Structure formats: structure tokens, C-alpha cells
């Protein structure tokens, strides 16, 4: 019985403490409810309704018509094929660049290191249309390389190479930005240990570095891929929008939408719904990977802590 009176004041103090703490964090009910309903309203009008509407329009005449709308004309098929080619190539280029950049930034100390970190983010800040224009200025008929390319019969602008280049440009930061914090947190210790045990650079990279960064890398790849498939502005400028040749999926959606007939209108919604589905799938994979990378970082932190 001794412990009870001894305990009580403490418990009371503790509970008033938390009550006070909570009260300080809590705003009046009308502010809380006001903010919550505001956010829901904005989400509903700007996100949920439009997304749902795309699917509603696309499927309004049933899945069979939907499939016909999607596959009726060869040009739409062509756009899908082009996107499925451009995106993986850009992603691959980005993986190579991203790993190399993240490696350089986290493993070496060199002059211009912070500048490089900043420049990697530049494509996020530049409007895609402007990015497209920059490539036109370089590779167009009046651009720096234009005459030389023409003389050698190399087609860059209004063709596959330019589409890949601008897509790679606008997606450049994704992989590197994901990897830099992961590699920073994990540190170089394991890599140096591998070298001390006789591994060469290649063995060290594949057996130690890649397994350690794989979730972060995959996360970057997923985001990069989604952006690469959805890119419109930059591709719009450099592709020439040659129907059946240089139209990607988003460009094709635009062309069909402006087609003027109810058939093209329906097709544009069908194609848009494919892009939207892609976004939703990306979102779910992203959530799953975020948990994985968070667990990796937590483990890295806990190992460093116990040491």
C-alpha cells in the first residue's frame, strides 16, 4: 500500500502534463474541421474527380469498345510502341548517369562537388518546353550541330534520338537524387572492407554496393519511368509530331483529343486512361519501395548507433 500514495502525485502530474501538451497542439474544432474539409474539397475537385472522369469516359461504352478505341488505328499503336521504347532507353541512361553521379558525390571529395549536386537538380527547375527548345537550338537546321548533321544525313530532330535526349534530360535528377542520400547514409566502409578482402572494383560494386542500394535504385527507376512515359512538353517541341512516326502516347492523346470526331475523342480518353493507370501503378510501387528504403536507412542508422 505504500506505493499507492507515493505513485499518485506522479501519475497526476504526468497526465496533466500530457493534457496540457495536447491542448497546446490543438486548435479550436472549427479550424480543424475547416482545414480538413478544405483539403478534401481541393483533392476531390482537382485530383479525384478528374482521374475518375477519365476512366468514366474511357469505359462509358464498356470494355470491348474501350479496347477497340485503343487499338483501332495503327497510329495509336505506334505511339504506344514508341513510348515503350523511349522510356526504357531513357531509364537505362539515367541509371548509368545516376549511379555514376551519386558515386562521385558521395565517395569522392573534389572541387565543384556541391555545384554538381545543384546542377543535377536543374532539369527539375527548367520548363520542359524550354528544355525542348534548347535541343532544337543545338540540333535544328540553324543550330550548332544542324548543318553537320545534315551533311552526314543524320536525323536527330523530329526523330527517335531527340525524343530520347529530351526525355533523359527532363528525368535526369530522379535516380541520382534517390541514391545520394542512401549512399551517404550507408557510407563507404563496406566497400573499403571488400577491397581489403581482395575484391576488385567490379566485384565490390556488384556484390556490395548494388545489394545495398537496390531499393533506392528501384525507387528512382520507377519514378523516372513514370515521368519518361508521361513527358509531353519537351517531346512536343523536338518530335515534330509526325503522325504514326514520332508521336508518343501523351502527344497522341493530344492529337486525338483535337481530332474533332467523337471517335477520336473516345480514343483519346482510352489512351489517357492507360497513362493514368500507369501513374496509379507507379504510386503503389512507390509506397512499397518507400517502406523498403526507409527500413534500409533505419538499419544503417541503427548499425552506426550501436557502434
Amino acid at each position: 500500500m505504500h506505493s499507492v500514495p507515493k505513485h499518485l502525485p506522479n501519475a497526476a502530474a504526468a497526465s496533466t502534463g500530457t493534457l496540457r501538451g495536447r491542448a497546446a497542439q490543438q486548435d479550436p474544432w472549427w479550424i480543424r474541421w475547416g482545414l480538413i474539409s478544405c483539403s478534401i474539397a481541393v483533392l476531390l475537385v482537382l485530383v479525384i474527380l478528374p482521374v475518375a472522369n477519365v476512366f468514366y469516359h474511357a469505359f462509358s461504352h464498356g470494355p470491348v469498345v474501350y479496347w477497340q478505341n485503343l487499338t483501332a488505328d495503327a497510329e495509336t499503336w505506334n505511339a504506344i510502341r514508341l513510348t515503350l521504347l523511349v522510356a526504357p532507353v531513357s531509364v537505362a541512361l539515367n541509371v548509368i548517369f545516376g549511379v555514376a553521379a551519386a558515386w562521385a558525390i558521395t565517395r569522392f571529395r573534389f572541387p565543384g562537388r556541391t555545384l554538381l549536386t545543384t546542377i543535377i537538380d536543374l532539369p527539375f527547375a527548367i520548363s520542359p518546353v524550354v528544355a525542348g527548345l534548347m535541343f532544337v537550338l543545338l540540333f535544328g537546321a540553324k543550330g550548332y550541330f544542324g548543318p553537320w548533321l545534315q551533311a552526314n544525313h543524320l536525323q536527330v530532330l523530329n526523330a527517335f534520338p531527340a525524343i530520347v535526349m529530351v526525355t533523359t534530360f527532363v528525368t535526369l535528377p530522379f535516380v541520382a537524387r534517390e541514391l545520394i542520400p542512401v549512399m551517404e547514409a550507408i557510407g563507404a566502409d563496406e566497400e573499403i572492407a571488400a577491397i581489403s578482402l581482395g575484391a576488385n572494383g567490379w566485384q565490390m560494386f556488384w556484390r556490395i554496393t548494388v545489394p545495398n542500394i537496390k531499393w533506392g535504385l528501384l525507387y528512382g527507376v520507377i519514378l523516372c519511368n513514370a515521368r519518361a512515359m508521361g513527358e509531353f512538353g519537351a517531346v512536343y517541341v523536338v518530335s515534330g509530331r509526325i503522325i504514326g512516326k514520332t508521336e508518343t502516347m501523351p502527344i497522341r492523346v493530344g492529337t486525338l483529343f483535337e481530332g474533332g470526331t467523337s471517335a477520336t475523342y473516345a480514343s483519346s480518353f482510352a489512351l489517357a486512361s492507360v497513362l493514368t493507370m500507369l501513374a496509379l501503378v507507379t504510386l503503389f510501387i512507390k509506397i512499397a519501395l518507400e517502406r523498403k528504403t526507409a527500413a534500409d536507412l533505419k538499419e544503417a542508422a541503427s548499425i552506426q548507433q550501436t557502434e
Partner: protein
Amino acid sequence: MSIVVKNLSKQFGSFKALDDVSLEAQSGSLLALLGPSGSGKTTLLRIIAGLESADRGSVLYEAEDVTHQSPKDRQVGFVFQHYALFRHMSVFENVAFGMRVRNRPGAEIKQRVQELLHLVRLEGLAQRYPSQLSGGQRQRVALARALAVQPRILLLDEPFGALDAKVRQELRQWLRQLHDEIHLTTIFVTHDQEEAFEVADRVVVMRGGHIEQSGSPQEVFDHPATPFVMDFLGNVNVFHGRVENGMAMLGALNIAYPEYPHAESRDATAYVRPHELDIERFPFGTSSLEVRVTQVNPAGSVAKIRVFSEQFGLALNVDLNLERYIELQLKPGDQVYVSARRVRVFMPNAPEYSI
């Protein structure tokens, strides 16, 4: 295999990490590089391993110059301060790594890993992951992994730095035992003088990128070559003063000092370890100093007493053995007398004199 280091220098930017360092570790010996952080000991170890390159100087294993060899060709076992275990690999795969990258056959790897796990007493944990191990277990996995490549020498960077006191003590003794079994020339880095003295055959004390003193633990402890070594090897009481005419006048402490019979007065500093001071209730001899007890801490194997001399404004640490402490019945505030059994006097730019 002996290790010889000749005139190594290494600079990081404007910081001189190593300045013309030479040393030799005899074949089969266990050598400790001891020093505070920034003394260059880890840099030296990494250069010996080939993980860092020197600006000048050379590294030899036995008679073979390995200065320009890769870590792989040098065949060293290196244990990292924070173990650097491969987090996505099991204990088995961690230990096997060095053999896997050398493309050894699977059966050989399996046998060798089992032998090593037995050696470091981790047989049952082969399938665990590093995150599931305690600090002491991780440390032993790191050691087994380093030994798996049949290294010619073993290098350990602060091997016990991250462990708690009890585990550290156990692992120290175990490392010494293991060394006696496998007889691999071993160099380890530590900032803990107790650890260096307990484990090593030879201790090399480093400071500011150069070697301050090297010798057996006994030699270094009993005959510190410089005030720095004296100070670094544990608690000391410092007295500043002068010497002349065979006398050292150190404020509170005036003692005969026949090693310096000259009339010319010179600056000197005297160092006395806490256990080299005695406490009496009454004045005794000529050199005892009147002090007041300020703090008494009898916890541990010795009683740590703090006393203060009002006359000289000087605080001293005294270690008494427990019997003596009980006999004296010391309490804070007591008036007592302190004398030194042993004093080391250092004069700037002069060798050590010991009384």
C-alpha cells in the same frame, strides 16, 4: 612475416598526418600503435594495409617491398573500427567473401568458414545477419572474415573501441590467446593505454604524426621518454619549477636532484603518478607537503583521494591501496601530509632524469 616501415610521410591538404615515420614489427609479434586521435596511427595502419597511399617512404613485408602493391596482392587481414560487416550477407557469407572473390571451390570455402567460426566461437550463428548480432559477436565475425583470406599479417583499427567495458576486457584476453595460437604478425591501433599494455608485446606511442616512443610495455611505462608519454599513459600530477645546484625546486616539492649539479638555473617540470604519492597523518621527511583532503572515492581496487594545498593553490590526485586507506580513515576536510616516492623531472630539450 615482419613488417618494416621506412620514412613514411603523408599529408592531407595542409594537415601532416605522418611525418617521416619508421618502425618495425618483428615476425609473430603483437604491436600496439597508441596515441590520441589525430596522432596518425590509423593513417599509418591504412598505409601498411594498402588502403591509403603514402606521399613518401616505403612499406616492406619481410624483405618484399609492397609500397606499390594493391591490398589484394598484399594479402592482409584488416579489421575495421566499426567492423564494416556486409549487412545484406549472413555471417557465413561475410566470412566467405574473401574466398568467393578469389573463386575458391565451394567445398573448400565451406570447410574454411566452419573452421574460422569455430576459432572465433560463433559456430551456431552462421546463418544470422549482422544486425542480429551483439557488438562483441560482430567484432569476432570481422576477425574471422579477415583471417579467411589466410593473411600474411593482421591489422586491427581500434578493435575494441565500440564495445562496453566487460566485453572489451574479455575480447582483449581472447585476442592475446588467439595471437599466441596463430602467431600472425599483428598491429593494432588503440587510444586506450591500458589495452595497449595488456595485449601488446611492443607499444609504439604516436603524437602529431610522429613516433614519440616505442618499446616493451614495461619500458614505456617505467621510462617514459617525454612529458607527453608520461601524461598520456595515465593520470599524473604535474609540478612546474626550476632545477639548479643539484636541487629541484618545484614549488610544493623540493627534492634533491643530483643529476643536475650545475649552477645555471633551468626550467623543469616534474611528473608524479597518483600511486607514487603517499599520505601520512603527520609531517615526515623534509619534502612532505601539508594538504587538505577534498574528496575521497574508495570505489574500485584503489582509493582515489583528492587533496588541495592552500599554500601553493595546487590540487593533487593520490591513489592509495585500500588497506592503507582504511588504516588512515581519511575524511574530506582532514589535514594530512603528502610525499612522493618517485618523481620524474623533465627539462625541455634534455633527456629524462629519474630519481
